[in-house]
């Protein structure tokens, strides 16, 4: 399975792929990931490619991703060219507007912010099966807004053709997050898993 993880710098995108990678190691499933880190600033666009099971190179070819897992909807759309025709997009529902967009707005260079509905419409036009999850809300319910990434990992795990079982994924979550945040992250994972099951 080919998965694109994306979002905005600071949301914990690399951790999502590390959790799945850790689970693959536990199951002995072949995995290759291509991450892009370098500039440590927040607010930039971040993407990680992950090939679970098959796939030889660290980058998913255009039209080759089974799933786009997005912590921010605009980023789901930005990388939609990686999605295979009819592929799945799981996205957080809250937009994060970049300061340039805000500045263009107040300077009258754009009339309004791009809306969630417009973004979602284009994701659908791209032929994606779309699942929307308010990950921040669920993460806060679990105890910390920081766990929104783990909510989405839970949602990814709930996909019928996801190649790793829930128990292994939970073990990987426990092994990957800071010790004092384990409980909240386990709850976040369960909430994401449940929310996705309901959507399916």
């Amino acid at each position, binding site marked *: 399975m080919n998965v694109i993880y994306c979002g905005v710098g600071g949301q914990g995108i690399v951790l999502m792929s590390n959790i799945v990678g850790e689970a693959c190691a536990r199951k002995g499933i072949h*995995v290759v990931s291509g991450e892009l880190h370098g500039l440590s600033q927040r607010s930039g666009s971040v993407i990680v490619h992950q090939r679970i099971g098959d*796939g030889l190179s660290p980058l998913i070819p255009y039209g080759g991703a089974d799933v786009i897992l997005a912590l921010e909807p605009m980023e789901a759309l930005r990388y939609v060219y990686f999605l295979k025709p009819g592929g799945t997009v799981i996205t957080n529902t809250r937009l994060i507007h970049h300061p340039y*967009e805000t500045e263009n707005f107040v300077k009258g260079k754009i009339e309004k912010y791009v809306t969630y509905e417009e973004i979602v419409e284009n994701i659908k036009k791209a032929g994606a099966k779309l699942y929307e999850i308010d990950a921040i809300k669920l993460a806060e319910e679990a105890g910390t807004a920081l766990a929104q990434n783990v909510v989405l990992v839970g949602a990814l795990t709930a996909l019928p053709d996801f190649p790793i079982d829930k128990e292994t994924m939970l073990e990987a979550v426990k092994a990957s997050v800071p010790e004092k945040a384990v409980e909240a992250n386990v709850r976040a994972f369960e909430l994401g898993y449940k929310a996705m099951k309901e959507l399916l």
Partner: protein
Amino acid sequence: MSLKEVLKEEPHVGYMLTNEAIVRAALEADVKVAAFYPGSPQTEILDTFDRVSHYRDDLVVEIAANEKVALETVAGAAFVGLRGFTSMKSVGGNVASDTLYSLAYTGVKGGLVVVIADDPYAHSSQSEQDGRWFGYTAYLPMLEPSNPQEAYEMVKKAFGLSEKYGSVVLVRTTTRVNHQSGLVKVGKLKRTPFDKLSWRENRRSYATVGSLARKFKAELLEKVAKMKEDPEFLALNRVEYFDGKEVKVAKPEEAKGIGIITSGVAYSYVLESLQKLGREAYVLKLGVLNPIPEKLIGDFIEGLERVVVVEELFPYIEGFVRQIAKEKNPDLEMIGKKSGHFLEMLEYNVPIVIKVLAEVLGRELPFDYEGHFKRMWELAKLAPPRMPTFCAGCPHRATFWALRRAMGRPENYYLANDIGCYSMLALEHIGWTDSLLAMGASLGIAHGVQHSAQERVVTVVGDSTFFHAALPGIVNAIHNNAKMTLIILDNAVTAMTGQQAHPGSPKKVNPYEKRIDIESVLRGLGVEKIVVIDSFQARKNIGKLREALKYDGLSVVISRGECALYHFREYRRAGGKIVPYFVDKEACERAYNCIRDFGCPAIVVDETDLKAKILPEVCVGCGVCAQLCPHNAIHSTAVLYGGEDKPHVTIEDYRELEQIMLRRGGQ
């Protein structure tokens, strides 16, 4: 990062980043001294070593002032006979290269391995450099892995090869190898205690001038000739036969028809492309970039009709293949960069490689990659660009805001920028940059410009850059009585690469480190006009900056404010609570000073009333925006709780705060 995978003593299979696998390999090779300067894409090697050093007392890990000093440090260890390791990004390789070329001459006693990490596509670099020429032109062996497993194996092997030849061994990587993760099978971690050796007993000459240099050069050429024949080096190159499904080991002489020569991450694109095309081909995967295995390449191409060379950046391998083909197979058709099939720039991927291979192998593309990309791009364009920007709470944003106001008319100034987070000023629409070249280069450029331009010259460096390469430029400016303003953005750490320590940093890697105070250095050098400001006092700083800009001579402004990511992480660890700011909707008159030319990611427009709004989950409470508001409409949320910090402010709490403020009718 999975430190435990790196430290686990028993052999195991772990999910690792290549940069972590490299550290594991060096540890298994019993490396004793490692030194670095950070820089993407190799920074995680330093970070992992730094963290490992907290758990092990059998190695020395240091962050050096720059790559040249780091290389010299590990070379010193290797002169004595201990194993040394350093890594650097491509442009850091330039800084170290002065020493590297001479070090190639003298050689080393203890194994010394140097990773040079290139960045095709210039994801986070000033240029797309090709570090493969360092190996070739310095006569140093150079290996190139294509994935984390190979990186682990090659780095481990490189130490032995280094000692066998008394030579530095280079390992060349690229961003897509450094930042690739996968399952890595590692061996037992068995280390020896750190015991100093006797230099007296081990010593030999490491001096190279004139007659000595000529002697060394002759030895160097002999070494390279031996390496060419060495089975240990040759075993790192591989001929494979791919039948459309599976890869099998093959002999070079077997290659017929169409063959492919490749190395590094491009090898993985080649294999995946062949798999997708379901077509057979012979592949020569080079693991050694210097010395080039000429005989092997000759044997491989001898029976071929066409050869495709797949490599990013320079046609480095292609050039050798062309030369060898002249003798071995003059009729060979070459597909590569010179034929126009591949670009000499950017990084490759499967769609780029498969397109050429499909054409050469006479197969239909299994998928219309270009068409799909174009169709999807039309839809994706709706998403506004999201380039990196100064973080919420970044001191640089506040400094530049004040600088801009102090200048009044920026067109009266020349701004020589440098390498660091502040480089983003060149991207920022709120900012401006007249030049930006290399670490510390701003000082020399500014010096030349102040000789030549009518405009007042302002130059910017960060604290880490100050120590890395700006000092000689500063000495030069003082000595030659330059008339300009130097702004040193002191945020306490090397922020851009992930908040590593530097010589002026309050943060330490080793307990024996001494902190060097930038202001004292400048006073000692004889700078007469030094203005120290608190970056976050943006409004107050305008006047102080203006004073520095007007000074008839060299003025230096030290703007102190800790990197937001570093500061707030430490603050949280110490039990501190973040107190976000909020907009008093009654007082806000939509002047947008907090948004215009400030660009904080925490501030957005509330579409319901078109007033400014601060996102509490992004705001870190630096409070600079409150200074910008002409209507005094921005306040700390602490105010609402009678001066008490609320431990955790959720979005719902924030909504409630807004309601409370509305009911109160402002402050």
